[in-house]
């Protein structure tokens, strides 16, 4: 490649980088918000939560770390708020080491300044954090039908027997629903599928909320009936907020990412056109 063309390409690359940064800045500051209608899966999710009795207990696996927080936090906050405001208790745990911090931050940020009806969420009574449980340990706990085989203490070292919310819970099947909020598979298998496969007496709905890059990985499990409800990707998370009549951060973040995606696709098409046009003119010469 001659020196002149190389310099030209470098300058073009810098123009693109700077214009991308400006666009990201402008889009985030403008904070657009496109409304997304709820799809069938989001409506089904809403119906499951809506039909749950007060005092029910839901098991939530938070399997994502800092890299997926921007995409997933909106859904985690929404689910926590909706369940707790309906007096449904929540037992949280994670199958990935990175999830411990995510749960703590999720509880702090998701419930800060939010009124849950007339009540406040109390640790131990309305929610509990079991911390990190390895995939194999979870498997052993499900097979032995005893939650104590997987965990005997919560993340703050309290014995599970002494925590009010854990009364009447002896196995992983004693919950009203299982929700996995995830950005990864655990040893090659979705966490929801581990629970579904190993528990012989499946009686609770298994729900998965996953990041955009996990959509293609989870769809076969939804289609084969191993996951009952799948809220897959950023758009569907915005739809979930819409199903609960909430305009939260998932909707605004989805809108920001959509604009940026259009810009990235435009750059890809433009750069390919420029590249092939250059090749053609070279060939003619």
């Amino acid at each position, binding site marked *: 490649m001659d020196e002149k063309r190389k310099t030209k390409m470098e300058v073009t690359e810098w123009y693109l*980088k700077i214009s991308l940064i400006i666009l*990201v*800045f402008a*889009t*985030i*500051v*403008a*904070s657009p918000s496109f409304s997304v209608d709820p799809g069938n899966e989001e409506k089904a999710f809403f119906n499951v939560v809506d039909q749950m009795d007060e005092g029910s207990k839901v098991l939530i696996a938070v399997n994502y770390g800092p*890299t*997926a*927080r*921007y*995409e997933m936090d909106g859904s985690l906050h929404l689910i926590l708020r909706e369940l707790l405001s309906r007096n449904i208790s929540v037992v949280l745990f994670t199958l990935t*080491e990175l999830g*411990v911090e995510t749960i703590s931050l999720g509880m702090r940020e998701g419930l800060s300044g939010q009124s849950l009806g007339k009540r406040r969420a109390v640790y131990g009574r309305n929610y509990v954090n079991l*911390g*990190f449980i*390895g995939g*194999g340990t979870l*498997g*052993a706990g499900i097979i032995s039908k005893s939650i104590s085989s997987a965990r*005997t*203490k919560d*993340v703050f070292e309290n014995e599970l027997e002494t925590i009010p919310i854990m009364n009447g819970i002896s196995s992983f099947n004693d919950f009203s629903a299982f929700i996995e909020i995830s950005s990864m598979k655990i*040893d*090659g*298998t979705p966490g929801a*599928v*581990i629970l*579904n*496969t*190993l528990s012989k007496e499946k009686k609770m709905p298994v729900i998965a909320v996953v*990041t*955009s*890059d*996990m*959509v*293609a990985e989870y769809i*076969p*499990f939804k*289609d*084969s*009936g*191993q996951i009952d409800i799948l809220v897959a*990707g*950023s758009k569907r998370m915005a739809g979930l907020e819409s199903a609960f009549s909430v305009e939260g951060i998932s909707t605004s*973040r989805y809108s*920001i*990412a959509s604009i*940026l*995606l259009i810009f*990235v696709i435009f750059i890809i098409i433009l750069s390919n056109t420029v590249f092939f046009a250059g090749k053609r003119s070279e060939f003619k010469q």
Partner: protein
Amino acid sequence: MSLSSDINIWISALLVLAVFSILYRDNFIYRIAESIFIGVSAGYFFCLWYFSVIKPAFEDAIAGQWHLLVPVFTGVLILILRKGKLSEILRIPASFLAGLFASLTIIIYFRAYVFEMISASIFPLVVLTDEGKINWTSTVNALVSITGTASVLIFFVARKYPDVKMIRGYAEAGRFYLLVAIGTSFGYTLFSRILLFAGRFDFLISQWLGIGFW
């Protein structure tokens, strides 16, 4: 605009900018940020495993469940017996781990990836509504699904029969299905990475610089 007065936000913001500096070129500041990231990650994972796995197991062992020390002992063997005459003993913990992992994953993989997936692939090609009419959406979906499954399977065995025209034709269809799947997966991954990038910018703009939305 109101700059954050929180030291944690400042440290995070400077590290984010240090990582973004790689967009210009490889530099010293980026390498410092990279080293900090690796060091902090290692420390975090060590603490987490110690407090959530090792410490509870030791406490339970001391409380009378002495059998919990067996895996600890085998784990220590892995660390110390890498070389020397006794290194053959390494096979004991290694085979124990492989056996345990296999016994758990065989159940999960066979049921989740084989049994359930095959069961889900068996469905009528023509789907009828309750009134007995053809449900075109489900029927087309079923046809696409069965053609895709068959052609992709043929694609993987087509190399053995390069001279059979029919197999080659099916393999081409399988290749098309695979490319569509890979393209879709790439699109979703790109969207996810854009969100990650936007997330860091959002942090810099709203939390560090304190520029409010309007």
